[in-house]
Structure formats: C-alpha cells, structure tokens
C-alpha cells in the first residue's frame, strides 16, 4: 500500500511539472500526432495496392500499428525518461541520494519521471485499434479483450525489463544513452505484423528481442487467433525478462561504488 501512495506522489510531481510547461505539452502532443500520421502513410499506400500482406489484411495490420503506437507511448512516457534520468545520476554520483531513501531503489528510479504528453500516443494507438475493429466489423469477446490486455501488460513489462538491463550497463560503461537510442530504433521493427519477417530476422525478433510477442501477439489475441501455447510462451517470456532485469539490477547495485556526488 505504501508503494501505491509513493507512485501517486511521484505521478503528482510529474503532473505539476507538465502543468508548468503547458506549451511544451501541447507542442509535444501535436508532434506525436504528426508522427503517427506520417507512419500511417506508407501503410495506406501499400494496402491501396494489395488486400493482404503475409496473410494480414488492412484492418488486422492496423491493430498491430495501434498497439505499437500505444506501447511506444508507454515506452517514451513512462520508461525511457526515468531511466535516462538514472544514467545521468550515475554519472554525477547523485544516485546515492536515491539509494539512501527507505524504499526499493529500483521502484524509486523507475518512477522519477513521466512525460505526460505521451498519453497522446497511448490514446491514439487505442483509437487506431478501435477504428480497425470497427472496419473489420467483428467485435472481440470479453475474454479476448482480457487476454489482449494481459499480453499488452506483458509487453510493457518486457520493454521495461530491457531498459533496466540497459541501465545496468550504465554502472559499468558510463555512456549508455546511445544504447538506449539503439534499442528504441530496434523497437521500430515491432510496428509491422511479425509474419512479414523471415529467416534470421524472424528468429531474432522472436527469441532474442521478442518484438513479435509485444505487438503481434496482442493483436492475434484480439482477433481470437492466438494459440494457448503461444499465449503461455509470451507470458513466460515476460516473466523471465522481468526476473533477469531484477537480478541484473540487484547485482549492479551491489557492486556500485558511487562517484561521490
């Protein structure tokens, strides 16, 4: 219960900060929308020529794009800003102030900063999914929606775990913000249904960086096409990533000697 209150407090701080820079908030939100529209253009052109790509029809592919957009909002709004902040703290030595607080350090550093205007991405992504479902004319059952939400949560967990692991590298090599950019650009590949990738690329995106699990599986769940086996493997993947991240974090904190902020 204490952690929930702490989370609310941290969120409140971010909201106050966003209220202070209202124009930035509006500009950021506007830019988000422009980028979402820009990303849709190639897809519109593509599906004006073809009715399906790798077995995915227009509205089905749009669901994947919607989930990609929403998760990108979560990544850029709730995961990256806070962890970028930690990298800076490690460099300056001010991470010590976090470590001496009487709460779990991973929790504290993960909730220090939220970029609230990214909510626009999340809302726009969900809107895309709803539009796609309306276009398809078949509304999913409550069970399918529940399963989809569970898988989206798992996807967010995997993203978070990957960033925690990148962050752990910051304890060893100081310059990891570039690495964060690299991972963010790899995530870009999750915007298409995983079926279009073949060979080595497909293997990497399924087993090494599980992009397929993040956006394609929730879409399949919503279309009621995801097998039980794949569902379980997705959830297991998320669990393994989360555990690995926790272990890596604890090990990093243990060997951290501080820069004497």
């Amino acid at each position, binding site marked *: 219960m204490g952690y929930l209150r702490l989370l609310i407090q941290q969120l409140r701080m971010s909201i106050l900060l966003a209220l202070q820079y209202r*124009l*930035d908030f509006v*500009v*950021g939100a506007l*830019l988000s929308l*422009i*980028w979402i*529209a*820009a*990303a849709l*253009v*190639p897809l519109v*052109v*593509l599906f*004006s*020529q*073809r009715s399906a*790509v*790798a077995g995915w029809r227009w509205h089905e592919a749009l669901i994947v794009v919607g989930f990609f957009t929403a998760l990108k909002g979560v990544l850029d709004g709730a995961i990256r800003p806070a962890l970028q902040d930690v990298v800076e703290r490690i460099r300056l030595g001010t991470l010590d102030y976090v470590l001496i607080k009487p709460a779990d350090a991973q929790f504290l550093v993960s909730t220090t900063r939220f970029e609230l205007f990214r909510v626009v991405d999340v809302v726009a992504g969900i809107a895309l999914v709803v539009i796609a479902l309306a276009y398809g004319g078949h509304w999913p059952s409550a069970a399918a929606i529940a399963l989809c939400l569970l898988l989206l949560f798992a996807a967010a967990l995997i993203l978070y775990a990957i960033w925690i692991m990148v962050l752990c590298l910051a304890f060893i090599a100081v*310059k990891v913000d*570039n*690495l964060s*950019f*690299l991972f*963010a*650009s*790899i995530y*870009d*590949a999750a*915007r*298409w249904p995983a*079926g*279009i*990738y*073949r060979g080595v*690329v497909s293997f990497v995106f399924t087993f090494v960086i599980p992009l397929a699990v993040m956006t394609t599986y929730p879409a399949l769940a919503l279309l009621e096409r995801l097998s039980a086996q794949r569902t379980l493997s997705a959830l297991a993947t998320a669990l393994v990533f989360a555990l690995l991240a926790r272990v890596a974090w604890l090990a990093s904190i243990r060997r951290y000697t501080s820069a004497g902020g």
Partner: protein
Amino acid sequence: MSRKEKLFAMVRIGFAESLAYRGEFLIWFLTTNMPLVMMLLWMAVAKDGPVGRFGTREFAAYFLTTVVVRLLTGAWVAWQLTMEIRTGTLARRLLRPVHPFVAYACEQASALPLRALTVAPLVVIILLTLGTDLFSSELSHWVVFPLALAGALCIRLGVMMTIGSLALFWDSALSLYDAWLALFFVFSGYTIPLELFPAWIQPLVNWLPFRYMMSFPVEIVMGHLDGRQLLVAFVYQWGYALLFSVLALTIFRRGLKRYAAFGG
C-alpha cells in the same frame, strides 16, 4: 596563414573530432534502420508479385541505397546550433574571424571521409548480394551522382541552419525540425519509393524539397531518370539549396542582433 590554409586547418580539426566520436557515430549508423524495416515490409509485399517496377530485389536495392544516401548526407547542425545558442557557447564561435556557418560546413565536410569509410562495407554487401544489374549502367549517371549527393547535403544543412537560427528567437525551435523530419519521412522516399504514391499526389511530391534530399540521388543510381527529368530535378535541388542558405543567413543575422549570450 592564407585563407586556404585556415580552411584546411578547420577541416583537419573536424576530421580529428569525428574520429574521437567514432563510437557515437557507429551507434548513429546502427540506428539508421528505418529504411531496413520498410525494406522488409515492402519485400514481403513484393513476394506476391511486383509493385509497379519494384520486385523484391528492386525494393532491396532501393532501400539499401537509401541507407547509403542517408548516412552520407546526415548532419547534426540543427541540434548543435540550438544547443550552442541555449548554452551560450555560440559566443565563442562569434569571436572567431569566420562565419559560424562556414565553420559548421567545414566540420561537416571533414566528417565525410569517415562517413564514406563506414558506408563502404554496406556498399560491398549490396553489390555482393544484389549484383550490379539493378543499378544504372550509364556512366553519366554515376558522374552526376556525387553532385546530387552534395545538393542533398546542402539542402539539409540549409534547413538545419535555418531552424537552428530560429532558436535565437524561440526556445523550442527544435520541435519545428521534428515536424520537418516527419514530413521528410513521408515525402522524401525514405519510407516508400515516391513513384508508388497515387498519381494525383505526384506533382506535390516533385514540388516539395524532400525528394531532392533523398529520393533524387537514389533514382539517379537506379537509372530511373532520363536526361530532361535529371536536369529539372537538379534545378529544383540547387534552387532549394540556395533558398535555404539565404534564409538561414538572413534569419541568423537578424537573430544575432537581439542575441544576448549566457556567458559561454
């Protein structure tokens, strides 16, 4: 030192700097993967039959060449300029007996050898996996290709300096560049070969500056353009390069008048 020697010295410093930050450059090199993501998508489409003149191999050639052009004509000046304006380090540049834009251009030029070197393996991979038959066999195309690359780079630098100079008036000028970049993604051929756009949009695409920053050099080496089209495109390209250079210089001069540096 003569004027020429000074310019040469600045280029040498820039080259040393680009070597010092080779790690960052490599990461940037690796993050330029949007065309690759698009390539895989379009190749999946072309598996069921070609789109226009593009089959799977043509799509691969097109997007890989796009990556090469992007890496050779990339620049940071917009971020550099806005940061130097915000932190006040621009003041140090203003003291030097050379226009800051000339200095930036020199830095850019001096990074080119390293860029070419990093791109070389990619070019080798393209030629080994795809062969040479997908590319233009006309010598004249290869002769004007560097000129088209230079034009593309000049437009980019001009736009970046224009938007960077706007930071003298407006703190969040960089968000303007972000919007510009989104338009670039759509209309430059970076994510979709421009000729696949519907016919009614083609005049707009040819009229906007974006095509001449990316698609145009790619179209040249793929042999898509005849002599007349080539000439018209070159006029557009260098016209835009000139336009943005003049715009950047004007805005910069105006902005400097009201600029009060923060220490530096």
